[in-house]
């Protein structure tokens, strides 16, 4: 799926640039984007290293048990086939907590860790499992209690009330999250993918 989307994006871009006389844009655009990707990963190394270290401590400190108790009903509902004491469970819980608290740069490391652990449970190595799709739906519409980046942006622009969008964002984010999860369930049952 993503392969076709990728091919379409590149071919359409070249075609559009060619037809509008902007073909000279293509080559520099490719290499500046590639460089951006590597810079992004360099930034991710530091973040992932630190947060995965902290995650190990969270697991051994017993804090994970507290988080488990709070989020258990949700996780049971969304990921019924992941065993309770499997490492995937801990990573999923950490990812959800980080998302809820608006800790964007911590959510990604925990999310990738969760994917790796779910891959251990996956029977077909190259095909996403049901749990992986659900987890992805959850993260693409990340439910956040505190949209910290946007609040910061508004405060910097001199808003009289930077946080007045917290309520509307939470509501809209809940709609998007529920829609993604419902779509995930329905499309899975439909079974055409």
């Amino acid at each position, binding site marked *: *799926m*993503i392969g076709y989307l990728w091919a379409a*994006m*590149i071919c*359409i871009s070249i075609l*559009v*640039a060619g037809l*509008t006389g*902007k073909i000279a844009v*293509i080559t520099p*655009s*490719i290499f500046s984007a590639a460089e*951006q990707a*590597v810079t992004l*990963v360099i930034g991710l190394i530091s*973040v*992932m*290293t630190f947060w*995965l270290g*902290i995650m190990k401590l*969270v697991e*051994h*400190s017993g*804090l994970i048990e507290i988080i488990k108790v709070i989020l258990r009903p949700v996780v049971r509902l969304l990921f019924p086939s992941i065993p309770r004491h499997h490492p995937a469970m801990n990573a999923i819980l950490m990812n959800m907590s980080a998302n809820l608290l608006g*800790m964007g740069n*911590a959510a990604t*490391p925990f*999310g*990738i*860790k969760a*994917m*790796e652990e779910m891959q251990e449970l996956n029977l077909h*190595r*190259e095909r*996403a499992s049901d749990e*992986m*799709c659900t*987890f*992805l739906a959850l993260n*693409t*519409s990340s439910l*956040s209690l505190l*949209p910290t*980046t946007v609040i910061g942006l*508004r405060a910097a622009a001199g808003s009289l*009330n930077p946080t007045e969008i*917290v309520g*509307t*964002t939470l509501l*809209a*984010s809940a*709609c*998007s*999250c529920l*829609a*993604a999860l419902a*779509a*995930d369930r329905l*499309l*899975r049952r439909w079974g055409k993918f």
Partner: protein
Amino acid sequence: MIAHLVDLVSQWVIPILIGTVILLALRRKTNIFDLFVEGAKEGVGMALRLIPFLVGILVAIGLFRDSGALELLIGGLSPLLAKLNLPPEIIPLAVMRPISGSGALAITAEIIQRDGPDSYLGRLASTMQGSTDTTLFVLTVYFGSVMIKKSRHALFAGLIGDFCGIIASALICGAVFR
């Protein structure tokens, strides 16, 4: 007052979390530094493994934007989205949101600068920006990290979520701020 409180919370949440974790871990285990390093070790390889996937997807997104194809897409979708009562100024953001996180943030920042954070458009853009995450990025990074080739229905589910988030933002802001 509330703004100050939220600001305070967002400044304190990470330090408090880290402090609590370390104190709790200290009570149980003596070698907490070794434990930290053991966990942290995995991070380096995990991040490096993402390079090919991110280069691939960011090149496609960059080309799509720089070639003018994105503008055409926005132009094509505008009449459809306008039927759903989205203000025309917000449509580029609605189309960009699932594709590129930094691109969407730049549009949001621009709207906030131009119309003011407390205008209707500024509030709507803020809500839309915060309501979902970048589907294409999350999909590539998460599935790429474990070499998943068949993503099944995940892309569609994510895009349906984005679409509903955008429509919900417009409806909710319309009801609350207008």
